[in-house]
C-alpha cells in the first residue's frame, strides 16, 4: 500500500491504495465519485476521461503511483467551473445527451479543448473529441453543444 496526495475538484485528498490501482477505480470505488464511467478500460473509448493538470486523460490508464501532487478535475467538479458550467448548460439545451453514458467523458474532453482553444472550428472540435465514443452516435448534437458553449463563453 502507498499513500498518495492529490487535488480533486479543488480539494486536497489523501488515498491509501495499491500502487497499480487505476485512477478510475480510486474515483469510483474508493471515493464514491461515480460520475466518471468505465467503458473499455483500455484507453479506447474515452468514457473515463478526466482532466489531470489541465489535460484530458483516460483515468483507466493512470496508476495511483503517478497521481501524487497532481490536480484532477472530474465531472463532479464541472458545475463550479466556468467553462464546465457553460458546457453542461449547452449539452442540455442542444439535446446532446441520449443514453448519457459517454457524456461525462465528452464533457471533460470538451472542457480541456475550450480551455486551450476558445474559438474552435468544427474540425478542431471533432479532433478534440476524437478520443470519445458515443454508441448512440449522437455526435452532431454534441459538436453543436460544444460550439454553443464556446460562443457563449466568448461573449
Amino acid at each position: 500500500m502507498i499513500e498518495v496526495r492529490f487535488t480533486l475538484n479543488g480539494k486536497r485528498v489523501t488515498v491509501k491504495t495499491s500502487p497499480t490501482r487505476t485512477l478510475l477505480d480510486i474515483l469510483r470505488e474508493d471515493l464514491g465519485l461515480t460520475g466518471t464511467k468505465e467503458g473499455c478500460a483500455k484507453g479506447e473509448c474515452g468514457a473515463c476521461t478526466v482532466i489531470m493538470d489541465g489535460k484530458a486523460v483516460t483515468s483507466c490508464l493512470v496508476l495511483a503511483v503517478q497521481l501524487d501532487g497532481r490536480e484532477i478535475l472530474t465531472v463532479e467538479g464541472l458545475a463550479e467551473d466556468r467553462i464546465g458550467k457553460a458546457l453542461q448548460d449547452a449539452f442540455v439545451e442542444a439535446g446532446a445527451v441520449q443514453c448519457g453514458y459517454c457524456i461525462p467523458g465528452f464533457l471533460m474532453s470538451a472542457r480541456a479543448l475550450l480551455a486551450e482553444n476558445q474559438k474552435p472550428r468544427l474540425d478542431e472540435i471533432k479532433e478534440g473529441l476524437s478520443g470519445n465514443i458515443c454508441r448512440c452516435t449522437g455526435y452532431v448534437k454534441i459538436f453543436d453543444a460544444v460550439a454553443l458553449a464556446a460562443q457563449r463563453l466568448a461573449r
Partner: protein
Amino acid sequence: MLAVHGPEIRVISGATDLIVQVLEKKKDPRALLDISHLEELRYVEEDDGLIRIGPLTTHREIEKSALIRRTAPFLCEAAFLVGSPQIKNIATIGGNIANASPVADSVPALMVLGALLTLKSRSAEREVPIDKFFTGPGKSVLRPDELLVDISFAKPRAGEVSFYERLGQRRLLSISKVGVAFRARLERKRMSGVAVALGAVAPTVIMAPRTAAFLEGKSYSPEIAAGAARIAEEESRGISDIRSTADYRNKMAGALLLRGLARVMI
C-alpha cells in the same frame, strides 16, 4: 535502482500500452518504476544545430511544438497519428521508442531523421543510432540498467522534403497496418541524401536502403516513383495478423511511398 534490480523492473511514464497488457494479464512485471515526474526529461529544444527531444515529451507536446513544426513537420504528423488526445497527453516519445513496437508511428520519422538515442546507466553513457536500436518486436539493445535520456537529430536544412504516410483501419485512432517515412534534399529537382523507413512490415521498423539508393540523384517522375514503390514492396517483409495480411501490407508500403512522393513532389 536500475543498476541493482534492472532485469525485474519495467520503467514506465505514460504506460498506455503496458497498463492494458498488465490488466489483461498478458504481462506481469515484477516491478514498475514510474519516471513520469522527471520534468528534466521533458523538453524540445534546439542546441547547436541539433534538435533535442526529452524522452518524456508527450506526443501531444511534439504535435504542438512550434520548433518541430518548423524543422520536421512530418514528425508532428506522426505524433498526431499515435492515438486519441487523451492518450497523446500522457504517452511519451521515449516510451514509443523503448517499447520497441514495429508499429510505433514516431519511429519511421525519427529513423529517416537519423535520430541518435542517448542511453545512460549509473556508470556510463552511450549513443545508439535509432536504426541500430531495435532487435525484434518489443526488443532492443537497451540494457536493464540503462535509461533512454535523450533523442536528438541534426536540424533538417531548408529545401528538404519529407513525409510520413500511414494506413490504418480508420484515419485516426487505429494501429498502423503500414507506415512509410521519407526524407530527401531537393536541389534543382534532384533528390539527394534520400532516406526511407518502413513501419509495420518487419519485426522492427526498418530502413529501406535499396529504395533510397534507387531514388538517389534522380528527379521525380511518376515512372521513377513507381520503380521505387516496387523496390519498397520487395524490401517489406510484412506478416499476416489480425490487422492485415502480408501481401497487402507489402503492396501498401509501395502504394504509400507513391502517395507520399506525389504529395510532396508535385
